[in-house]
């Protein structure tokens, strides 16, 4: 069971962290003089769905981007599926620097702005990493990609270019592009924020299907209803720290005043 689910235990058993799929320890990150992450500890266990919420500028995206090392931590350590990277935790001898790319290969990411490759067809968007990173043959790569696209309901679009797709379709391609690499954990950074309201549903449905398959997920979202629905562990962030985390009950019964104020404002 997930340590993060026991919301009132500040002294979560440390032994558990060695088995977590993702473990962040004492992460600090500054942009210039802006201290954005101020000592983040977070564990995500296999199959768990973690929802991160909090006010704008609180560091949610930065935290997510630290998990796949798009942001380098100033101190602390990131561990994904046994691969550890980072300058290390203060007071400990020294950090371990596993290979950054090896760690990234275990993590899939879905961006707010989709970030599909506009010069490549839908199929090539999904095959490119299979070919370039996993070095698969073209046939094999295309079959895997087509199966993944079928799963998000876009098999008929494999020949299209991203510009010809709706935002919802583009985001589903982006989900397929990440999933096809068989990541251990999937990160979502406000995947529906850039979508027209009528297209939000199809992307949430794809994420719900994915959650049902038992994929480990970390989701930053402003869709509190959706967060409440899939979140096994719910993390409230403010000003670069995790203020509080807990199970579904956090939405109705939380410990911290700041959390209560935020939830009241957005729900």
């Amino acid at each position, binding site marked *: 069971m997930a340590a993060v689910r026991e919301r009132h235990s500040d002294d979560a058993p440390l032994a558990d962290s060695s088995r977590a799929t993702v473990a962040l320890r004492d992460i600090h990150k500054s942009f210039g003089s802006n201290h954005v992450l101020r000592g983040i500890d977070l564990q995500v266990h296999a199959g768990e769905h973690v929802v991160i919420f909090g006010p704008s500028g609180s560091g949610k995206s930065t935290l997510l981007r630290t998990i796949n090392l798009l942001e380098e931590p100033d101190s602390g350590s990131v561990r994904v599926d046994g691969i550890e990277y980072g300058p290390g935790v203060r007071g400990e001898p020294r950090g371990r620097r596993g290979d950054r790319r090896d760690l990234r290969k275990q993590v899939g990411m879905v961006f707010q702005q989709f970030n599909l*490759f506009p*010069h490549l067809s839908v199929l090539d968007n999904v095959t490119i990493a299979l070919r370039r990173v996993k070095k698969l043959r073209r046939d094999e790569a295309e079959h895997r990609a087509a199966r993944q696209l079928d799963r998000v309901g876009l098999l008929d679009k494999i020949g299209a270019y991203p510009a010809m797709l709706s935002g919802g379709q583009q985001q589903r391609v982006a989900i397929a592009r990440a999933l096809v*690499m068989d990541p251990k954990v999937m990160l979502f950074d406000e995947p529906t924020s850039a979508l027209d309201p009528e297209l939000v549903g199809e992307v949430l449905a794809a994420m719900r299907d994915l959650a049902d398959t038992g994929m480990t997920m970390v989701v930053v979202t402003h869709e509190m209803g959706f967060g409440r629905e899939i979140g096994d562990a719910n993390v409230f962030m403010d000003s670069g720290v995790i203020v509080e985390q807990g199970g579904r009950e956090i939405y109705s019964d939380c410990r911290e005043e700041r959390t209560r104020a935020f939830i009241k404002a957005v729900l």
Partner: protein
Amino acid sequence: MVAQVTFDWSVVTDNVALYYSGVKLTLAIAAVSFVLATLMGVVIALLRLVRNPVISAAMATYINVFRAIPLLVFILFIYYGVAIAFDLDFLTAIQAGILALVLQYSAWLGEIFRSGIQAIPKGQREAALSVGMSRPGTFFTITLPQAARIVIPPTGNMLIGMVKDTSLVYLLGVSELLRVTNLLANRTFRYFEVYLATVAIYLLLTTTIYYGVKFLERRYSVVDVLSEIKRSRSPLARRRLARLRTLQETVQGGATAAT
């Protein structure tokens, strides 16, 4: 009194071979200079973008200096100034001309390529890295192909400029189109006919390049649905389409069989 103007085009038709030799040299100088300038331009753009502030500043200086000198001044300076002062007598007039063209055009092209690369959103790089691609792999498969599409039109303009600017090396005695024309006109006194033919030839060359560039532009604009459909008439696109159909059927068939 109205001047009686009569044209005698035989001076042109009798000298087709001469024009041809001039065009050949003009195009050869332009082609060699353009290829070298493009290669150097890519290198300059990349060095301009490295994090090392010294290298980046050095490239910025290169760009600003070589762009700012009038090309004719630069050509004369290299051939008569630098070559003589430093005893570079192995440097032929053609080589000096090409050197000047390459130095100047690589500065322009470097700036064009830099802005093309920088126009690609950061999210593109991040998406590629997030699926495990290496930095060089990301640059060559994601950033560069997109930047190349963006820089096609301005680079085409540079090529047109290059063809026109080769005429400046006639001052070094290089027998390209303008110089052979010039000699012919001085010899025959048929200035109008001789120069008009030259004007027409330059116009033909630059217009051809212009339409070539337009074609490339359309060929590589993926958002243009119409060109996409046109492209699908080609055998290559047909084969690709057939391939996709098969793929769809296989996956669909597999899915139905599984359920």
